[in-house]
């Protein structure tokens, strides 16, 4: 399974393995985004995070994001792995790797991927603070959204 480009896993993620998945003789640029568990958010101190996913659909949605990227930025290769389960401070929750012949698309496509993950991929996190816990939702203030369409502006935010 080392070559699945879009994966939900329960074990720690190797950044190197994601980079290998997108390597290409015609890539001049590879960008990675590594989402880690941050200790302090606002005034709250996180002890650990718990991630849950609707796994088969989440992998489909990650693959869809990859397809959207290939359509928007030609000659890109994309790999995304998101981890679920219990994660401690500084542990890696998500890695996005994008390769491209040129650097601009590598940055743009990578940032597009994380924004889309936060819109359409069925993954949820529960914050465990020192004084309680809560499932986090609606970080983007998307109350509802109908489709997994590439254009965010087409979505229904009512």
């Amino acid at each position, binding site marked *: 399974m080392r070559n699945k480009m879009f994966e939900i896993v329960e074990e720690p993620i190797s950044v190197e393995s994601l980079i290998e998945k997108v390597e290409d003789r015609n890539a001049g640029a590879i960008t990675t985004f590594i989402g880690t568990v941050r200790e302090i958010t606002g005034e709250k101190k996180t002890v650990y995070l718990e991630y849950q996913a609707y796994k088969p659909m989440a992998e*489909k949605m990650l693959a869809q994001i990859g397809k959207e990227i290939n359509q928007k930025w030609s000659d890109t290769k994309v790999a995304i792995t998101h981890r679920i389960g219990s994660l401690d401070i500084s542990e890696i929750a998500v890695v996005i790797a994008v390769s491209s012949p040129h650097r601009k698309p590598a940055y743009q496509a990578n940032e597009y991927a994380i924004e889309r993950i*936060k819109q359409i991929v069925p993954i949820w996190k529960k914050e465990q603070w020192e004084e309680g816990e809560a499932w986090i939702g609606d970080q983007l203030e*998307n109350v509802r959204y109908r489709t997994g369409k590439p254009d965010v502006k087409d979505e229904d935010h009512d």
Partner: protein
Amino acid sequence: MIEVFLFAQLQEEVGKDKVLLDIKEITVKEIKHQLQSQFDLSQIEASMVAVNEAYALEDDIIRSGDTVAIIPPVSGG
């Protein structure tokens, strides 16, 4: 029979990760109302519904044998 998966807050409120509904045919909008009244869920209005692992519209029809998931606002990344 329609299998309905629940996640995050909704899963905790219902106390299980899936429920089975003995229904032949129902719209997305109707299934949300039904779950709402049956379990008193906090987030159902803010949730999306996925049918067979794809986001569905309010008027889409769910049939016996379909797999449904209630998707509260996501927070991955």
